């Protein structure tokens, strides 16, 4: 039989819908005078984040005599922050990013990310702008906002900011889900509970922001001044999909370095490779970083929702397995 895996998995309708969606996104930001920028997809530094796996390639050329590691970016965050430190101002980017080991009905090795930064915004203001974008692109209703703590209290009746690992594990087991694989790792248990219990209980028909993630999951967000147990990090969920992750950005180079180093210590404990810290990013933060908030949105998932599709392959011309 003739092999048919040369064909795109996206319908013509989906290919057109993607073009339209990207046009709408650009119009949204042009209207608001947010500058479209472009940053490298291949950088000398990767991410230390324990839960992200960079794809790596080795390149050489004039000025670079030996084959050298270049990392496919898992998001354009670091180079965009260098632009912000250099004074570029409000900016957005629509680009491809690459994450190794992520393939599922909702994941593809490479996918399209929309990322933007707003000077002078905090996380709550950026949520409002993302809500406006959702209404514009998908015609959604107004969004709900609830804290990570509220979300856990209503879904599991436990307070994630005070509960012990054993208490979280018991609450997960009470929902009929085994969690031995993360036994006494509090963040692992919270991640598991978030994905399998809390998220599925959110109303799929209302865009829902979950904000004030635990400080241990702050990543690149600043911690809260009033309550240092939480960070100014938020996520957006809609139609059963995680659509966005945003921060009121950490501007402190010293604290950022400590977090990167903590990631690498955790990597060592888990037997994962050490990742060189992005010194250019830290230099940029040290040189003076504007007060800003930023967010990354999965564009392919927006498209899945817009077209009512259940598998990411339906919105990709050539998903990784037939790329």
């Amino acid at each position: 039989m003739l092999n048919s895996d040369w064909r795109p998995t996206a319908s013509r309708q989906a290919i057109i819908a993607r073009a339209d969606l990207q046009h709408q996104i650009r119009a949204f930001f042009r209207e608001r005078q947010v500058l479209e920028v472009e940053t490298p997809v291949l950088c000398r530094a990767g991410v230390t984040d324990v839960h992200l796996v960079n794809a790596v390639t080795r390149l050489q050329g004039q000025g670079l005599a030996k084959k050298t590691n270049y990392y496919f970016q898992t998001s354009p965050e670091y180079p965009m922050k260098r632009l912000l430190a250099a004074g570029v101002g409000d900016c957005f980017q629509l680009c491809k990013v690459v994450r190794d080991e992520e393939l599922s009905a909702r994941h593809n090795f490479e996918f399209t990310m929309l990322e933007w930064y707003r000077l002078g915004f905090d996380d709550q203001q950026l949520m409002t702008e993302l809500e406006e974008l959702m209404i514009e692109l998908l015609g959604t209703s107004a969004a709900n906002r609830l804290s990570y703590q509220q979300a856990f209290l209503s879904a599991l009746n436990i307070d994630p900011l005070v509960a012990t690992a054993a208490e979280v594990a018991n609450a997960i087991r009470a929902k009929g889900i085994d969690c031995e694989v993360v036994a006494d790792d509090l963040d692992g248990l919270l991640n598991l509970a978030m994905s399998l219990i809390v998220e599925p209980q959110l109303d799929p028909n209302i865009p829902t922001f979950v904000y004030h993630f635990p400080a241990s999951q702050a990543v690149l967000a600043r911690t809260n001044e009033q309550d240092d147990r939480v960070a100014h990090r938020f996520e957006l969920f809609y139609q059963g999909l995680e659509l966005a992750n945003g921060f009121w950005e950490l501007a402190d180079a010293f604290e950022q370095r400590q977090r990167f180093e903590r990631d690498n210590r955790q990597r060592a404990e888990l037997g994962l490779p050490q990742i060189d810290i992005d010194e250019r990013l830290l230099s940029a933060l040290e040189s003076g970083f504007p007060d800003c908030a930023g967010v990354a949105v999965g564009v392919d998932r927006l498209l899945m929702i817009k077209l009512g599709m259940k598998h990411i392959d339906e919105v990709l011309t050539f998903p990784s397995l037939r790329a």
Partner: protein
Amino acid sequence: MATYSTNEFKGGLKIMLDGEPCSIVENEMVKPGKGQAFNRVKVRKLISGRVIEKTFKSGDTVEAADVNEIEMDYLYNDGEFWHFMNNETFEQIAADKDAVGESIKWLVEQGPSTLVLWNGKPITVTPPNFVELEIIETDPGLRGDTAGTGGKPATLSTGAVVRVPLFVQTGEVIRVDTRSGEYVSRAQK
């Protein structure tokens, strides 16, 4: 010892869980953008038949189960074991009561069954979806009742008891669905 990583998980893959061979039914990766990746895996335990869900960390490995399915013909029962023969190799295998289980009442001599072998030993015996068996005993049925609504019990040559329409009589061969244990029709002559 062969192992599989979660990346190799797919429907039908045989793995060991809690010391019991299992067949994967469904595998879903759950991965937040910033957070740990897990696999939620639905498996069927091959001995008990129970379906359970299990959480794995993505990338974890599990031991492979040495399980294979084979079609064999039923030969005879020696009082303790049920003996089957592979029609291609003529190799014979004995299955115990636990492996044969409920299938006992559908085993027809010289008839085919599917055996699941774990480390070469039968753990389940599954008869074909439909078998044809002779009725050895049933009430003659009430004269005049032709609606066939209620039916009546009939004992088959294997000892199985199924409900049959009133018009079906002792000595007839009927077709039975082994999954539901229900009468389907009279056998085609």
